[in-house]
């Protein structure tokens, strides 16, 4: 196995893990919005809050985390931008 294969494998694994997490947040949590709405924080019913703000911040965090890991991966495999 060449090192370029290893690089791709790890990038792909990271992508799929984050994608599954994204799916759970977007569709999983939303499916139960009615039940989650019973909880109230800062005056917001939680289900409403997740769709209006919470999920968006999680999305941002997913992208941030992906960029961070990819940067590390690039460094580890000695990839410099051409």
């Amino acid at each position, binding site marked *: 196995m*060449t*090192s*370029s*294969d290893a*690089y*791709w494998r790890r*990038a*792909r694994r990271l*992508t799929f893990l*984050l*994608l599954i997490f*994204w799916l759970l947040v*977007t*569709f999983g949590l*939303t*499916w139960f*919005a*009615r039940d989650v*709405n019973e909880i109230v*924080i*800062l*005056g*917001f*019913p939680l*289900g*409403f*809050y997740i*769709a*209006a*703000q919470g*999920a*968006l*911040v999680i*999305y*941002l965090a*997913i*992208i*941030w985390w*992906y*960029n961070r890991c*990819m*940067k590390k991966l*690039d460094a580890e*495999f*000695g*990839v*410099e*931008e*051409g």
Partner: protein
Amino acid sequence: MPGSLTRLQRYYLLYTGGFILFVAALALLEDHGMPPRWIGYSFLIFTISMYAVIGIMSRTSDVSEFYVAGRRVPAFFNGMATGADWMSAASFIGLAGTLYLSGYQGLAFVLGWTGGFVLVALLLAPYLRRFGEYTIPDFLSARYGGNAIRLVAVGAAILASFVYVVAQIYGVGVITSRFVSLQFEIGVFVGLAGILVCSFLGGMRAVTWTQVAQYLILIVAYITPVAILSWNVTGNPVPQLVYGKVLQEVTHLEERLFHSPAELEVRQLFRERADLYAQKIMQLPDSLNHERDQLSSQINQLKATDAQMKDIVALERQRRELPHDPEQARARWETAMFSAVDRSKPPIHHAEAFPGETEAERDILRINFLALVFCLTVGTAALPHVLVRYYTTPTVRQARESVFWSLLFILLLYITAPAYAVFAKYEVLAHLAEIPITKLPSWVAAWAKVGLVAIEDINGDGILQLAELSLNPDVIVLATPEIAGMPYVVSGLVAAGGLAAALSTADGLLLTITSALSHDVYYRIVRPGASTQFRLVISKSLLLVVAVLAATVAAQKPGTILSMVAWAFSIAGSAFFPALVLGIFWERATRAGALAGMVVGVLLSIYYILRVEFDSIPWLGLSGFRMEPWFHVQSTSSGLFGVIAGFMTIVVVSLITRHDPRSATFLRTIRVQSGAGQR
């Protein structure tokens, strides 16, 4: 240089400062008696000439500059430009209104339009940048080979982008006609000029730098009014943090108002009206004749007794305005019936998710909510004018980072929109409901004059019940400055922001259409030997032609085209998303598979929209083909089926066709950065 600002950052800081000074100066002038109309003009002229200056400064005669801004746009600024590119007139003006009207259900747009950027970041942006050509059809053609797929991609890109660009220019016409009282058609052509000054001379390079400027204006314009309103209502100027408390207040008011006897009576009256219309429609054409006869006999009676001329004229006008034939009567009465039915329904609680009487009703709403989120996310990750922005960064790493910045800048608007809706709802429930109609705040009358607010005192008690009030969604953002009692300069600022949102999106779309035609069709297929100079001439002429064409369509005020924008997401999603994602992540995907998948996806989406939404297409001689929706999914979410069918078709067809060994080489270059693997 850490610690100090780059040249670009200094420029834009100066620009933002200049804009704030300009607004402050106008506020001062208004205080000294400058009429609102002139404030509107000042905003229009100032902002468009700013964009023109940037556009002229960025003029270029280089192909790479024209299509991808020379790939020199830093991640941070590309994020801002993408934000402006992405947020259209619909996001700026319409979204808060949709959230006002549908409460939690409207949040599907917020989730979908932001969640899509996760897909862009993880699945597309880095690979498109590493590939590094000019357009999305370029990518598909390089991955799968051949010109057929390029042509299909060009067709889908134009199909999705053109209706969208028409809607933006329409939006410009609406804003200019409302705030500086230009005639709508003239407003459309002012918009055309505003778009061309940004893109004609400098292509992507000029569009990028004006989009950054437009982002700054639109975000300031969006947040200012609601921040002031929040300060007035709660004493805290950060609406996103405090509207939870206001939402609680709204829920209390809802519980008190929804079941008051007067509200119930009004809803009952609307139900009776709906029944009456239903009866009249059933008895067509007799009911129409009957109504006409009745009016005639009334007129004759009045004429016999010497009644006031005024009353007779009024009745005669009523008779004249009756529908001319049963067809027209049916159409008109159906609209009236549906609007009465809507108003007779018990209103929904703002924060309640999937409100319904029964479990089955709730499940339909839940399915539709998720289906819409799915289509909007996938559509976001497939609209060519957004994806092409990630070709413009210097490196792959910067492309990844710029998705982060894009989402951050877009988030600022999308977490503010629900706050707008909640504050507006609080205002309506607390200060309009149960108030005598003669004592309503003045903004209601002002916007009723333009037809965005309508009040009908159906029970005749002189007091406003909630069901008697109907608001056009656009009014929420447009009227907030007046609701909060702010000077006109803030309204002007909002108009300038809406204009910036519409113009920036129109520019991006226009460039996508132009490059699809000039680069993909003309240069890649018709005349591959064309000189660079000639290619630019072709691009610029096409840009002009497409822009004028779009403005001409917009000037016709096409009502249907606005609802077609929602379909653009489904069409773009089912055309591009499966082919792009499988193209990057599945080596076995073949040309035949991708072609079949794109065609099947788009056709299925369009088929579903047509059969669910329409019953006949007269000019094709088709009629009576309306069908029941599958799984109760609305036509705006037709992409759900299109995308799934697209994925399945690509997989099946790819597995039964022979796969091209060259795809492995291509994938190595886009998956792994240059340098990796050689060590």
